[in-house]
């Protein structure tokens, strides 16, 4: 077997796959954040909690109601998305006219409530979720668990579908128009407040979908989204929230960077994304794909 810079290929490709999977989650979550921010002008701090709710919904469905993974993949985002719509209708809607920081604080408070309640009910130790596609393939240079391969492909499909939905469909065109100039779009007879509500539901559903996909890989636990959302914030700062494609590329790219760091200098693997953020701020403050605004 060949070796690369003294690193056995199993370790290298294993970490690269892990990086790609992490990147898939960064991409899906930062995409949702960007879509929500574009429309609502709110940085959704609850995103990590909603991701956790997605995983929990799938786990509860499986253990309490025997609903299989594939059904949960559809049901869970719908349920959590609906929960998001209620949040938007009851609370978020009332603070759009205020400074951005209030949306940030409100959603931070909501995340504390949701995560605290889940932790109180189910504790903070994780519960395992059996892999829906067990087994794997030996590729010669590494072993690929089938489910992990599926997650990468599914995340790519989800990201591209979101991109297509926003950039190439009529609904997406309304969305982009309403982001640019809501008053004018309303004058054309389009119900912008409903569009905003739907967008939030969509973004939240996306987070929940990521949560369901993560359930069989990670332990399902009340705090699974806490650190993740902070990393995703850094991803969003690096990519800039202006471009959908930018979020996807940045998410996957940073996952790979993190994976490579784990191979070559493990102690820095937790911090490398933040270091990249510092560098990007030095060189291109608006973010890799952002416009200065």
């Amino acid at each position, binding site marked *: 077997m060949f070796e690369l810079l003294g690193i056995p290929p199993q370790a290298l490709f294993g970490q690269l796959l892990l990086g790609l999977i992490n990147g898939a989650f960064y991409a899906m979550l930062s995409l949702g954040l960007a879509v929500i921010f574009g429309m609502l002008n709110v*940085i959704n701090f609850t995103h990590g909690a909603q991701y956790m709710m997605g995983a929990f919904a799938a786990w509860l469905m499986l253990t309490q109601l025997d609903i299989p993974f594939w059904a949960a993949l559809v049901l869970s985002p719908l349920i959590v998305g609906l929960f998001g719509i209620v949040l938007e209708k009851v*609370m978020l809607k*009332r*603070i759009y006219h*205020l400074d*951005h*920081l*209030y*949306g*940030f*604080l*409100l959603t*931070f*408070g*909501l*995340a*504390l*409530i*949701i*995560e*605290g*309640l889940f*932790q*109180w009910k189910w504790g903070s130790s994780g519960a395992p979720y059996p892999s829906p596609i067990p087994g794997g393939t030996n590729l010669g240079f590494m072993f690929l668990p089938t489910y992990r391969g599926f997650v990468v492909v599914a995340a790519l499909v989800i990201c591209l579908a979101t991109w297509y939905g926003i950039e190439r469909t009529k609904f997406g065109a309304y969305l982009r128009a309403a982001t640019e100039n809501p008053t004018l779009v309303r004058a054309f007879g389009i119900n912008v407040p409903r569009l905003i509500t739907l967008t939030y539901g969509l973004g939240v559903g996306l987070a929940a979908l990521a949560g369901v996909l993560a359930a069989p890989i990670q332990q399902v636990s009340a705090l699974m989204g*806490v*650190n993740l959302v*902070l*990393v995703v*914030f*850094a991803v*969003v*700062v690096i990519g800039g929230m202006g471009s959908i494609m930018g979020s996807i590329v940045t998410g996957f790219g940073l996952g790979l960077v993190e994976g490579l760091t784990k191979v070559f200098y493990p*102690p820095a693997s*937790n*911090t490398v994304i*933040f*270091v990249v*953020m*510092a560098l990007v*701020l*030095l060189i291109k*403050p*608006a973010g890799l794909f952002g416009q200065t605004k």
Partner: protein
Amino acid sequence: MTTQRTVTLVLLAAALVAPWFAYPVFLMTALCFALFACAFNLLLGYVGLMSFGHAMFFGMAGYFYGHVVKAWNMPPELGLLAGVAGAAALGLVTGALAIRRQGIYFAMITLAFAQMVYFFCVQAPFTHGEDGLQGIPRKALLGGLIPTKDDRVLYYVVLAIFLFGYAAIYRFIHSPFGQVLKAIRDNEQRAVSLGYEADRYKLLAFVLSAALAGLAGATKAMVLQFATLTDVSAAMSGEVVLMALVGGLGTIIGPVVGAFIIITMQNYLAAAGEFVLVIQGVIFVVIVMAFRKGLVGELADWWKSRRRAG
């Protein structure tokens, strides 16, 4: 403003006799958090910059204090100095990067840097990771002049440190420098067009705020004799935001009130476990939805309208 002066005098008198009526360690902890919240509020209330990563200054200063006093066996004054200087240096680096973006991005960037510092503290040998830096000796201050074994004596030291920090913030806000800061908060473009280099002012305010948060963190390590990961965590960054918010942003006394409320609440709810977080979350939501001015802000409004009516 005679009302303001009366209130200040009453509060000061209360602070002087407090250790005979309440547990001194509780009071000292609350004073440290009050200073921390004031330092945070200097940035948000008077420059309009919301740092969601202030725990990095507070927590790191505690580690610096502990390392200097315990591992290097130096006097506590040097420990405090190390805490302040270390926090200021960290503030200079992170602040210079964070002010390159505005608005909500600033909050996300500071949050991300604080998370980076947190991960660093988990791994770095001098912080002792999950165990924390424990058993920092309490040494006499000023070369043995002030013994600190007695909690009440130490209380007056902490009160003096707090008042020093509070007075410093008061001076900043009411100086020409503070006026420029407020101008930048209200209309940055205009301040720039008048010839002020907004970025320099912002950075200086950020470093000052970090240094004072560091003073609070180092003092807390001196009082409680330990420094742990809790103090550098994102939850702590959120807590200080909550304190300032509960008391009232942009009022100088508000964060002090907020800190005392939150610390008292935590003291009583210590047994409630996860529910402390839930309650904190509920307070966040209620304040953002209904009482954005905070306790002191709402009270001041009520007082003003009452006087106008009467």
